[in-house]
């Protein structure tokens, strides 16, 4: 855990120093939300009904940008495989990167949720607690699978294209679960329909986490 912590510390410090990545992500996310709201038009009821889906599409699109950058800093520093020269379980590299991605996405969502409330006039504030649970599970699943594919594609020439191509199909259950749970919570059905989606998200997150952690060392093989 100490090595995972070192990677988390290093990545967050780098992000704080440059700020370029986060600012670009934030601008892109705001742009996506604005475009959706313009495309749908001024019909407030429709906007509010679609808010959950549009919010998660914005998170997935923007998060994919963040994930693409996760291992690029390692390439600039000589290659992610050089991290394998340190003794210890290479899974610590995955866990550190995963934690850094989670922190970045959480910071992004701290802005996106209120922005969605304003733009789509959806009442997110009064459902803050169940929505936070959905956000944790949805973001967790997204980061777990995204961090893995980011490491897998970092050495490929067409990585910008291949990352979403590999990632999006694997995200289908997460997006379905997150959107379904968000819609159910916003419809006031936090204990009923949302519960089913939350159970699906939890199960999928756990399975993905175990599989990704298990096979990550193979990704670092040259």
């Amino acid at each position, binding site marked *: 855990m*100490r*090595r995972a*912590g*070192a*990677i988390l*510390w*290093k990545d967050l*410090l*780098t992000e704080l*120093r*440059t700020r370029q990545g986060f600012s670009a992500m934030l601008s892109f996310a705001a742009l996506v939300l604005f475009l959706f709201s313009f495309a749908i038009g001024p019909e407030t009821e429709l906007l509010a009904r679609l808010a959950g889906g549009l919010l998660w599409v914005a998170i997935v699109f923007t998060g994919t940008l963040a994930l693409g950058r996760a291992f690029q*800093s390692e390439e*600039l*520093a*000589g290659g992610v*495989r*050089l*991290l*394998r*020269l*340190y*003794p*210890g*379980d290479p899974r610590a590299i995955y866990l550190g990167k995963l934690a850094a991605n989670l922190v970045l996405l959480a910071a992004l969502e701290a802005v996106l949720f209120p922005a969605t409330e304003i733009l789509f006039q959806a009442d997110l504030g009064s459902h803050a607690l169940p929505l936070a649970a959905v956000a944790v599970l949805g973001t967790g699943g997204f980061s777990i699978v995204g961090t893995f594919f980011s490491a897998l594609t970092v050495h490929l020439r067409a990585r910008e294209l291949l990352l979403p191509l590999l990632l999006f199909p694997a995200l289908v259950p997460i997006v379905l679960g997150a959107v379904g749970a968000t819609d159910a919570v916003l419809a006031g059905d936090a204990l009923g329909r949302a519960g089913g989606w939350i159970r699906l998200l939890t199960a999928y997150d756990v399975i993905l986490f175990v599989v990704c952690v298990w096979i990550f060392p193979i990704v670092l*093989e*040259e």
Partner: protein
Amino acid sequence: MSGPAVRTAGLTRRFGRRWALRGIDLEVARGEVCALLGANGTGKTTLLRVLATLLRPTAGTVEVLGVDVRRGGDSIRGRAALMTPAGHTYEELTGAENLRFAARMAGGTLATEGVREALARVGLADVADQPTRSYSTGMRKRLELARVGLRRLDLVLLDEPFTSLDEAGVALVQEAIADWKAAGAAVILASHRVDDARRQADRVVRLERGSVMAEGGSA
């Protein structure tokens, strides 16, 4: 601890259809400095990367510090280090932060004084708190030397350690090699600076097209 630091027999490594190493037989004793010489693309870096456990051999036997590289990678990595030509440096971090990160990744910690000392040894004390993106190539090389020197090692693998360094920098590397040798560590260095490599090496191995072409004591 007995036995050589490195023992390879029939070591072969292939990248697709290209053979980078063809049946390398090599033995390096503990406390010995071995120089790998050869033109570009002769397999020096590949050999170092196999010994550092970064690459798996395609065929042959490779024992590093008495451990088979296919089975005991982690045990080897705890006692060996590889210094790469470009270094392993994060540009947004300062020199001191880079060393602190390396120490934590190696499973230890490095107090501020330890960081200062390590940087002072390689002549970077004055720029310890500057981001390494402002460092020259030679300064990054010195930082890499400080990083490798953080741990107590039984095997040191140096890939082009003299490249990009001024005379003072070259002297620092030579001093470090002498210190490692005195401490009983085996040192394997791949270099284009034939004279510097020969001066320090107990033995010179010349590679050509992935094979050992000549081997002997330093001139």
